[in-house]
Every structure is written in structure tokens, then in C-alpha cells.
């Protein structure tokens, strides 16, 4: 996998080549991150496309300090929240609000109904408040550090750790319950 320290200067020298490398590395993680938040494939596709266009147009605003991965995931998260907000008739969704995504209702044809354990885990995750969802998803699926997650969510490392802990407790409780 190409290192971000190689991608960043390449985008400055040769935008198209550098951006292709960026997409090769991040298109799947960004899509799956958004998909876990918005659930529907069509919504995730739109938000992912908007994310990369925004990255392309605002790349000059990336200072070069701090994690590039966190900067990308912050943009992706904002696009997902904007889309969820639009679906609720708002400009965007605040991290203090619940995304209110119901897994079964929003599921589409790109959904594996046979994988019951995975469905149950996603149900547990989507039932969490947005901050806890983000802390859990970014740590569990994307291997971001607490410091990077704090950049994505605009909070502190201590808050992220607490949110991750609460999220994990709730998920374990749900997974051990008889609910499906």
C-alpha cells in the first residue's frame, strides 16, 4: 500500500497521477466507512463521490501537519452526516444527534441477508449515537488511533476513548442478547 508521504507530494507535482494513487488507496476504506454510517449503497456511492471531489478541490487546504488519513476520514464523515441530515430535511446532521438509520428499512439489493451475525453486529452499531458509532467504527474497522479519531470527530482523545468504551459495552450487551 502506497504511503501517504509519497502520495501528498505527488499530488502537488502531478495532480492526476497523485490523485489516482490516493483513490487506489482510499476509495474502498472511504466507501465502507460511509456505507456503515448511511447503510444504503446508493447513498454511500453519492457521499463517496462527493468526498473525493471535495478532497480534490480542497487539497491545498491540507496543511501537511497531522494525519492525512484522519483529514480524509473527517471529510468523508462530514459528507455522510450531510447526506443523513438531508434525508431528515436538514442541512447536515450534528454528531450529537442520532443518525436514525434503520438497517432493515434502508437495506437494498446490495445486502447479504444470509450473514446473520454480521447483520446483528451492524444493527448494534447503527443503534448507537453518532459519536459512539464513529469511535467504534474508526477504531474497529479502520484501525485509526484515538488521536486520529479525535481529529475526525473534532473532540479530544479522552472523549473518544470514553465513546469507544461505551459503544463496545452496548454492542457486547446487544450481541449477547436474544434480539436479532
Amino acid at each position, binding site marked *: 500500500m502506497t504511503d501517504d508521504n509519497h502520495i501528498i507530494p505527488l499530488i502537488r507535482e502531478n495532480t492526476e497521477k497523485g490523485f489516482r494513487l490516493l483513490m487506489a488507496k482510499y*476509495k474502498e476504506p472511504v466507501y*465502507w466507512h460511509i*456505507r456503515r454510517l448511511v447503510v444504503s449503497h446508493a447513498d454511500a456511492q453519492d457521499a463517496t463521490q462527493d468526498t473525493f471531489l471535495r478532497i*480534490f478541490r480542497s487539497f491545498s487546504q491540507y496543511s501537511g501537519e497531522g494525519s492525512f488519513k484522519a483529514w480524509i476520514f473527517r471529510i468523508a464523515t462530514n459528507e455522510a452526516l450531510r447526506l443523513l441530515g438531508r434525508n431528515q430535511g436538514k442541512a447536515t446532521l450534528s454528531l450529537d444527534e442520532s443518525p436514525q438509520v434503520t438497517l432493515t428499512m434502508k437495506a437494498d439489493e446490495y445486502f447479504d*441477508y444470509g450473514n446473520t*451475525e*454480521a447483520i446483528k453486529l451492524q444493527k448494534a452499531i447503527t443503534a448507537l449515537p453518532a459519536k459512539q458509532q464513529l469511535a467504534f467504527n474508526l477504531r474497529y474497522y479502520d484501525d485509526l488511533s484515538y488521536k486520529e479519531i479525535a481529529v475526525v470527530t473534532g473532540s479530544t482523545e479522552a472523549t473518544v476513548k470514553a465513546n469507544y468504551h461505551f459503544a463496545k459495552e452496548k454492542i457486547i450487551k446487544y450481541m*449477547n442478547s436474544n434480539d436479532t
Partner: protein
Amino acid sequence: MEQNYDFSKIGKQMPYTVPDGFFDKLEENVMKECAPTKPRVIRMAIRAALAIAACIALFLVVKKVLPQGQDTASDDFENVELAFNNLSTDDQDYLLEVYQEELLLDNDLNDLNNEESI
């Protein structure tokens, strides 16, 4: 209630899937949206259409001003000059501007053709 759950049982599996070839198409769509050449070509096409319209307008003005049977090759230039002088200052400025843009456009198109041939 048991307070443990073995996450390794499920790992990073998710119930979500994507259509075949989705990520390749996504990349192409984004790269297409980011391409800077498209708006430039559209701008040039609009300028070309304006330049052609201006040339037609100038031709019609010349034909109207000239008496029948007098448009011989020898005094064509004088007739164009006469027609041009009969135009308002605004129209004259507009035609001069379009004429200059047309010259620039020719250069742009030549540059573009050269770029494409490379």
C-alpha cells in the same frame, strides 16, 4: 449477563455488498469530474459560435450597405470599411473584440490540436 463477546468470530465481516466493478467505475467517475479540460472546450465552443455569428452579421451589414452590382473585388476592402464606419461605436467595439477573440481562439485550437496529437 455475560459481559464478553468474541469479536474475532466475526472479524471485519459486514452484510453489505457492492455491484461488480463498482470501485473501478467510482474512480473513473471521480477522475472525469476532476478533469479540467471539459469546461475549457465548452468555453472555446461558445466563443467560436459567437465569432461565427459576428462574421455573418458583418457580412449581412456589408451586403445591405452596398448598392447592387458594386461589390467587385477591387473595392471590397473600402466597402467593408464603409460598412464598419456606419456602425455605432458600441457595435464597432464589439466586432473588434470578437475579431481579437477569434484570433486567440485560433491559437487556442491550434494549441489544443498540438496537445492532442502529442
